[in-house]
C-alpha cells in the first residue's frame, strides 16, 4: 500500500460529532477548570442549590464553636443528630407538599396526635408496638387523603384545610390524653431505646459509608459507559472517582468523629435512609418527575396526561404519613406521649427546615436533602444557644431571622433565575 504522505497523516480523522455536542454555539465545559467555571456561572445566574444552607451552616458552627468549644464535640453532635431526626422526618414530608406548591400547616398536630395514639394503643390498650405504630401511620395517611380530597374535589386551599386540621387534631390529641395528660412509655422498651440510645455499630457504619461510595461510583460509571456507547458526551472518569472518594472521606470522617463517643444514632440512620429513598423517588421515578411538573405548571402536566389529582393526593398523603412517623419518633425520643407533643414550634420548624434547606415555596424546585440540611441548621442554632444558657426567646428570634433570610434568598434567586432564563 502507498506510504501515507506526511502532511496528510497529520490531519486528525474527525470523529462524528457527539449527539449532544453538535451545536457549535454552545460553550461546553471540559475538564476540572471547565466544571468549576460552569458551577460559578450557574450560581451567578441564581441557581444556588445547597450553597446558601452550607454557607449558613459553616457560619453557625464557627460562631458557636468560638463561643463555646463544647459545640463541635463528638457527643454534642451525636445529641444534635438524635434531636434532628424527629422533626427532620416531618420536614421531609413538607418537601413533598412544597414541591407541588401546597402547604401542610397541621404536621405538628398530626405528629402529636400520632404519638398520643401510639401511647394509648400500646401502653393503655396493650397492643403490640408495631401494630400501634402501623395504626398511627395509617391514620396519618388517611388525614392526608382527606386534605387531598378537600383540595381536589372541593377546591379548598390547602392553607385553610390544614389550618383547620391543625386545630382539629390538636383537639383530638387532648381528647385522647384527657384522663392522664401524658402517657409514659416504658424505659428499656425497644422503641424508647431506639429513640434515645441505640447507635449503629462502628463496623456497620463504615460498611454503609463504603457501600454509598461504591454505589455512587458504580451507578455513575454504568451511566457514563452507556452514554459513551450511544454517542453522548461523558464526564471524565477522574471526576466520578473524585466524587465517590469525596463521599467516602467526608462521610467516613463524620462516622469516625461520632464513633469517638456515642456513634451514629440509629434514629438518624432511619432519617437519612428516608431522605435517600425520597431523593431517589423525586429524581429517578416517573412519580417524582410528575410531582415536579405539577409544581411547575399544573395545566401543562394535566395536558401531558398526568393525573394531577392523584399527584396531589400522593403528596398530601406522604406528608401526613411522615408527620405521623415523626410524632412516633418524638414520643420514642421523649419516652412519653404528652399533651405538649407536636405543639409549639414543631410545625414551624418542620416547614422552616425545608425552606432553609432550599426547597422553594413557589413549587417545582426542591430536594429531599433540603430537609436534612435545613433541620441540622435549626437544631444547631437551638443546641448552640442551649449550650450558652440562653433562653428560648433568643432561639425563636434567631431561627425566625434565619428563616427570613432563607425565604429572601429563595425569592431573589428565583428572580435572578428568571432574568437569566433558568426559572
Amino acid at each position, binding site marked *: 500500500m502507498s506510504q501515507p504522505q506526511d502532511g496528510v497523516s497529520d490531519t486528525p480523522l474527525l470523529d462524528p460529532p457527539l449527539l449532544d455536542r453538535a451545536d457549535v454555539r454552545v460553550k461546553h465545559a471540559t475538564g476540572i477548570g471547565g466544571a468549576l467555571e460552569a458551577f460559578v456561572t450557574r450560581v451567578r445566574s441564581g441557581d444556588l442549590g445547597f450553597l446558601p444552607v452550607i454557607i449558613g451552616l459553616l457560619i453557625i458552627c464557627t460562631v458557636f464553636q468560638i463561643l463555646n468549644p463544647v459545640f463541635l464535640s463528638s457527643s454534642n453532635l451525636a445529641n444534635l443528630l438524635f434531636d434532628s431526626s424527629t422533626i427532620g422526618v416531618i420536614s421531609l414530608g413538607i418537601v413533598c407538599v412544597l414541591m407541588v406548591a401546597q402547604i401542610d400547616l397541621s404536621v405538628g398536630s398530626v405528629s402529636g396526635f400520632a404519638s398520643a395514639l401510639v401511647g394509648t394503643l400500646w401502653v393503655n390498650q396493650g397492643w403490640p408496638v408495631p401494630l400501634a405504630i402501623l395504626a398511627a401511620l395509617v391514620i396519618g395517611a388517611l388525614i392526608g387523603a382527606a386534605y387531598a380530597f378537600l383540595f381536589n374535589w372541593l377546591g379548598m386551599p390547602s392553607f385553610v384545610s390544614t389550618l383547620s386540621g391543625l386545630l382539629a387534631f390538636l383537639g383530638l390529641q387532648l381528647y385522647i390524653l384527657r384522663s392522664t395528660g401524658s402517657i409514659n412509655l416504658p424505659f428499656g422498651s425497644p422503641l424508647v431505646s431506639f429513640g434515645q440510645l441505640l447507635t449503629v455499630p462502628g463496623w456497620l457504619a463504615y460498611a454503609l459509608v463504603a457501600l454509598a461510595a461504591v454505589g455512587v461510583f458504580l451507578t455513575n460509571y454504568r451511566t457514563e459507559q452507556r452514554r459513551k456507547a450511544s454517542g453522548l458526551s461523558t464526564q471524565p472518569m477522574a471526576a466520578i472517582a473524585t466524587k465517590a472518594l469525596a463521599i467516602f472521606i467526608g462521610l467516613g470522617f463524620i462516622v469516625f468523629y461520632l464513633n469517638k463517643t456515642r456513634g451514629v444514632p440509629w434514629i438518624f440512620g432511619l432519617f437519612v435512609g428516608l431522605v435517600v429513598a425520597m431523593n431517589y423517588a423525586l429524581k429517578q421515578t416517573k412519580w417524582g418527575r410528575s410531582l415536579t411538573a405539577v409544581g411547575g405548571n399544573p395545566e*401543562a402536566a394535566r395536558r401531558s*396526561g398526568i393525573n394531577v389529582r392523584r399527584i396531589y393526593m400522593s403528596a398530601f398523603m406522604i406528608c401526613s404519613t411522615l408527620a405521623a412517623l415523626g410524632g412516633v419518633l418524638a414520643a420514642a425520643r421523649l419516652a412519653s406521649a404528652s399533651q405538649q407533643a407536636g405543639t409549639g414550634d414543631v410545625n414551624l420548624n418542620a416547614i422552616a427546615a425545608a425552606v432553609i434547606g432550599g426547597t422553594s415555596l413557589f413549587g417545582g424546585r426542591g430536594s429531599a436533602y433540603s430537609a436534612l440540611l435545613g433541620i441540622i441548621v435549626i437544631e444547631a442554632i437551638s443546641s448552640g444557644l442551649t449550650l450558652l444558657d440562653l433562653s428560648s426567646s433568643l432561639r425563636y428570634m434567631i431561627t425566625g431571622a434565619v428563616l427570613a433570610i432563607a425565604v429572601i434568598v429563595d425569592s431573589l434567586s428565583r428572580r435572578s433565575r428568571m432574568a437569566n432564563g433558568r426559572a
Partner: protein
Amino acid sequence: MNNVSENAVPHGEPVLSLRGISKHFGAVSALSEIAFDVHAGEVVALVGDNGAGKSTLVKILAGVHQPSAGEIFFAGKPVRLADPSTAIDLGIATVFQDLALCENLDVVANIFLGREQGPWHLDEVSMEIRAWTLLNELSARIPSVREPIASLSGGQRQTVAIARSLLLDPKLIMLDEPTAALGVAQTAEVLDLIERVRARGLGVLMISHNMEDVRAVADRIVVLRLGRNNGILAPDASNEELVSAITGASENSVTRRAGRRAQLERSSEARP
C-alpha cells in the same frame, strides 16, 4: 426540501370526523354544530377570526374540554375524549398555542412528560438519545437538552413542543398556531415538517392566522366564524373568498382597505 405534490397523496380513510359538535360556556356558545373530516395523509387548515372558536375546538379534541353536544369519530369509531391521556392514547397529539411546557424541567423531561421510560427507574440515557433523534429529525437548533425550558427562545420551545407531539407516533397531529412565534427559516422548517408528517400518512389539523402558511401546505381550508362552520375551501381559493368567509361579508374592513389602496394606486398612476 422534499416537495410532496398535493395530488400525489391519496386521501385515505377519515381519521377524524366531527358531527354536530357544540360547546357552551354558560350562556355563551363557543361552538355550535361543527362538522368536518380530517383524512389520513391530509392537512386540514382551520381558520377563523379571533373568537371564532378554533382554540376551543382544539381543546375539545385534545380532551381538555368536553363538548356539550355532538359526536367525535376517530378512525371510524365513536370516541369520548374524557381527559388528555385518553386523547394521547388514541393517537391524537396536540401542540397547544401556549405550548404547555413545564419551565422548571429540562428539554428531555418535557418531551417525555407523562410518558417516561422506566417508571421506577427513569432511563435518562435512552430518553436523551430519543430526544436528540426527534430534535434532529426536525433540524432543531437546541443547544442542550439538559437546560431548563426557561432558557430557550420562543422558536426553540415551539420545536420542543412539536418534538413532544411526535414522540408516540400519533395518527393525528393538531397544531395550534404553530408558526406564530417563529422566524422565517424556522417557519419554513415547520411547514416542511408538516409535509413530511403528511407524507407519512398522518392527518394534520393546523390552525393558523397566516394565510400564506395555510395556502402553502393545506389540502383543505375549514373556515369557522362565530363558532359555526362557514365553508370549506380549496387552498387555491382567492383571497377575497377566504377573507369574506372568515369575516362573514364581502364588504368588510379588509376589502375596504384593499379598495382604498387600489384607488390610491390608480390616482398615483393617473399623475404624469
